């Protein structure tokens, strides 16, 4: 999606099983020497370029050593087994002044610029950053000329905001976390689990995939920060597809993430989940499509989490509030009520777990070397704060980063979400929430309301040039009738505009759930989490989802009658 749009989907998984190396190259030099080499070259660059007409006032160097191993199985057999990795060099170099540098008023969209290099020697590391610095400095100098020209011919309405707010020096290093690997065992395990999908001829696919991803990050900047962090994510994905008689393709998947293998579900739990996927898919095949609808609905914790991420979170990302093409929904709503008084929303990258679930949006330092801070954006329903990277706002109180400058490799950092947590003071039980909805149905004389049990993701548009809307893609939806009975339905997307939905949030339950996923926006894919209770919304709208009309496979499965 383009700059101000977001598409959020669950991690396209794969499980893990790695070898004896913990990075792309086991011959990597000592972590301290990597940082020393980066620091030495950074200091040399700052010093040597100081005589230039517009010297850099800030440089940061970053290296990410990535390693990934994965195994895919289908119907009890291995289909792919792979191992990959790369060592990526990145730089952020600023010329001009911190209030107006070479990135000023640019939308920061660009293609990822990926530079590969090795970490086998200090000389090699310095050679790579030498070339990268030269290229980036020349590019930044050209950008600064454009910025200065634009500033002469455009009205800058933003006031004295920082393009790069000052930050404090930090020093941090973590121990290497070894990858726990037993590829053959994991192949067998995933084969056993995906074997559950056998014996169901209507399933077109039935997969169990596993992966491990390890990212070791090295960061130094001209403010003296030195950071080395080590992050491991294990993922298991169970998925299956079938096709309904009306041609609809029906897909269901369940993802599990953990920082250690022991945090993943047991075989018994995974097998049970695979069984549930089969049962739900078979039920979905026979479920009716529903017509476009407006009325009350309950969103499960996972669905509500994605909703908050899309309609609230993206509109609180500070850099957007400086972009003239952004709708800036909440820019002037500080200290105004945006949610019920009982609800607060927090972004907290320091939170590692919720219950037993590891959170993906966790980090200690953001991509700009700033400590990730807990930010209470909404307190008792009142909007209080925005998410900020080092590109800050002019208003007092928003001139410092709160550690949410994030990016994928090769892209420029912007303010992004971390772990979103919806807190409720006086929650109801799920049953009470349902009773409230039924009361609304009776009051409005509506036949049914909707319950969104599970979703696959969503996206939102925040630009002014397009409708300021969101879409959430549900996969398990029930009609709830006035008598409390439920009917599984399919074929709709949840749509709407943000302020209209907030105005209609009535209550929340005490059944908080976690949605882990990848958020894609202008600075690339970053891992995020959303934690929310179920919520009751007085009025939502659904529209027909896009749907295949292709007929069922022409020939019956091999081995069946007539084949």
């Amino acid at each position, binding site marked *: 999606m383009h700059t101000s749009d977001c598409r959020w989907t669950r991690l396209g998984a794969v499980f893990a099983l790695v070898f004896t190396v913990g990075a792309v190259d086991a011959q990597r030099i000592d972590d301290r020497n990597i940082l020393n080499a980066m620091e030495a070259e950074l200091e040399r660059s700052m010093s040597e370029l100081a005589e230039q007409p517009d010297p850099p006032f800030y440089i940061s160097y970053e290296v990410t050593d990535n390693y990934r191993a994965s195994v895919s199985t289908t119907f009890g057999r291995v289909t792919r087994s792979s191992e*990959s990795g790369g060592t990526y060099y990145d730089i952020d170099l600023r010329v001009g002044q911190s209030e107006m540098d070479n990135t000023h008023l640019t939308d920061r969209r660009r293609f990822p610029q990926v530079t590969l290099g090795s970490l086998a*020697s200090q000389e090699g590391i310095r050679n790579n950053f*030498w070339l990268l610095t030269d290229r980036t400095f020349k590019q930044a100098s050209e950008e600064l000329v454009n910025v200065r020209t634009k500033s002469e011919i455009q009205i800058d309405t933003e006031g004295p905001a920082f393009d790069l707010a000052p930050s404090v020096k930090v020093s941090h290093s973590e121990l290497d976390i070894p990858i726990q690997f037993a590829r053959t065992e994991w192949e067998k395990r995933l084969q056993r689990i995906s074997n559950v999908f056998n014996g169901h001829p209507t399933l077109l696919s039935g997969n169990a995939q596993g992966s491990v991803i390890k990212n070791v990050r090295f960061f130094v900047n001209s403010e003296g920060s030195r950071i080395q962090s080590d992050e491991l994510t294990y993922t298991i994905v169970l998925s299956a597809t079938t096709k309904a008689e009306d041609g609809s393709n029906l897909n269901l998947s369940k993802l599990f993430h953990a920082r250690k293998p022991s945090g993943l579900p047991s075989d018994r739990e995974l097998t049970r989940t695979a069984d549930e996927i089969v049962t739900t898919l078979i039920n979905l095949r026979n479920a009716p499509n529903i017509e476009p609808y407006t009325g009350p609905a309950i969103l499960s914790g996972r669905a509500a989490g994605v909703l908050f991420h899309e309609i609230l979170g993206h509109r609180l990302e500070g850099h957007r509030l400086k972009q003239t093409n952004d709708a800036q929904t909440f820019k002037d709503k500080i200290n105004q009520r945006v949610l019920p008084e009982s609800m607060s929303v927090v972004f907290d990258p320091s939170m590692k777990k919720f219950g037993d679930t590891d959170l993906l949006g966790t980090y200690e330092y953001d991509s700009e070397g700033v400590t990730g801070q807990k930010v209470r954006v909404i307190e008792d329903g009142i909007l209080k704060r925005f998410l900020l990277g080092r590109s800050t706002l002019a208003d007092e109180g928003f001139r410092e980063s709160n550690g949410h400058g994030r990016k994928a490799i090769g892209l420029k950092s912007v303010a992004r979400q971390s772990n979103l947590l919806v807190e409720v003071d006086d929650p109801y039980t799920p049953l009470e929430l349902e009773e409230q909805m039924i009361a609304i149905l009776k009051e409005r004389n509506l036949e049914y309301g909707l319950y969104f049990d599970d979703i696959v993701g969503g996206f939102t548009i925040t630009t002014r040039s397009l409708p300021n809307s969101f879409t959430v893609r549900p996969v398990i939806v029930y009609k709830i009738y006035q008598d409390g009975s439920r009917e599984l339905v399919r074929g709709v997307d949840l749509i709407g505009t943000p302020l209209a939905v907030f105005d209609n949030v009535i209550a929340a339950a005490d059944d908080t759930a976690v949605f882990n996923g990848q958020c894609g926006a202008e600075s690339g894919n970053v891992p995020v989490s959303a934690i929310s209770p179920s919520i009751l919304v007085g009025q939502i709208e659904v529209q027909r989802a896009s749907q295949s009309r292709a007929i069922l496979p022409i020939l019956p499965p091999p081995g069946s009658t007539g084949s």
Partner: protein
Amino acid sequence: MNRLCQLLGTAVLLLASTAAAADENSVLVQALQDELERNIDGLELEGVVEPYFIGYTVHTDHSITVAASKGGLENMNTGQTRRLEVEMRVGSRELDNSNFMSRNFRNQRTNRTLALDDDYQLLRKQIRLATDTAYRDAVEIYAAKEAAMKNSQQESALDFSIEEPTIYIDERRSPKLDFADVRNFARELSEVGQDEAFIHDSDVQVFANQHVDTYLNSEGSHFTRMDDTAYIRVTAWTQSEDGRYVSDYVNILGRSWNEIADLPEVKREVKAMHERLRTTRVAEPLDRYNGPVLFQGQAAAELIGQALARNLINYKQPVFENEAIAAMFNRAMLVSSLKERLGSRVLPRSWSVYEDPTQTTYQGTKLVGHYLVDSDGVLTRRVNLVENGILKTLLSDRNPTEDIQYSTGNNATGSGPAVSNLFIEANDGLSDEELKQLLLDIVAENGEDFGLRIDRVASPYIQITGVPSPFLGSQIGQSLPGLRAYKVYPNGDEELVRDAVVRTDLLKELRNLPGYSAKTSVHNSTYLFQGGDVSIFSGNVPVFVSIVTPDLLIEDASLSYMEGVVRSLPIVPHPHAN
């Protein structure tokens, strides 16, 4: 009698009884065979065209790609996959769903990942779904093509040629491949020259793939083909004092990793490449030149590969959905500029040019373009392309044209016809001394101060990270950037120069060469042969090509340097400079 039997006659019996039994992949082959029979006979929808041909290719890969620099790995990918490719043709040979370019970006090929294990029931399930998808796509494409043809003209040739069914089981097995060895090789090789401050950057890329194709079609063809490939590629670049880029590379290709992984020898080649960079960097720039150029060794082979080879391919003009689609894709569609000259002289009168994938070596050197059966199941053979300078035929796959009705067995990778082992023979070549003297005679005749000799040129298919492509703004075959060029003075003295970029219609020049050497040499490289809906919609596969050619003297070449790619020298000195 069902459709399969109508098509195959006795061939299918042979296939079922002997080939499958002889094949090590018998579970896979049996599953393919059983689904093939069931689908060719059973796939039908009321009022919709039926399949008349189904081809299954299972590509099994076990590969490693490693990039390294300065003694360490920078990127690595390993994986094991088994991929089914379904070729589905509906309608008839007169008119089918192939060779149609539309906004749907689909063609007659469908891909699906298969289980690595030989599970007969699961394989059949996966083959069935892929075939079903392929059939649905095929009938849609067929309908769209039929509609488009009502408003357009196209060649009256068949859409699919008639070929004899082939059964071929490759008895060879891939040698053991140790991925750790490959990684260590790349790492160690990348240490060469890492202390050289004049080299701005240098990268090593190695690749080794154990590949087996298993093929069956509804005409009774069945083959298995081991198609292992491997390469070692080392690139390096620097800048001369005026900021111009100076780059070079080592590119070693083979049919197995063990065949090319001679570390001491490769190190020697890399060191020699670095030495070339060192001297070229400080050589004087050539800039502009018009006159004779002697292409030797690798430069002569690349000249043939880039200027002649792609013109030896028989590309069939596709049917376009409409004018807008035609405008969109016409650029990407290569058309042989020699196609209209079949039967005419296109090369020197004493030249014979032939393609022969059956050859494995040439004068003791292994040829990387060797294979015995092509991706359509057609056996390869020697194809005489040019005799006495006259173009006799072009290389073709099973997409016939009015001029060439049958496959020559040259669908090397499944992306369309391609050159693989190309031989140029001449019976009146000159000795090295005679050829150099001829160059100087032309120089004298033209009243020029010097002639030019080039023995290394760049390849458009080898990208050097950090360096703008010297081919920018040029069509392949119209530009040949020299990496190693020498002014040759009338007294025989030579002076190394840089920035010698040939910008001439080299194909045209080849017709009237004033001279060429008696000595021939073989060079291996990779080329892309893009053309047709398969290569554009399914992706192009680089083809390993061996070219055997004499040195070539071009009478009148123009050389100039494109200034747009100059960038100032680094502001900060190299970290090792002091």
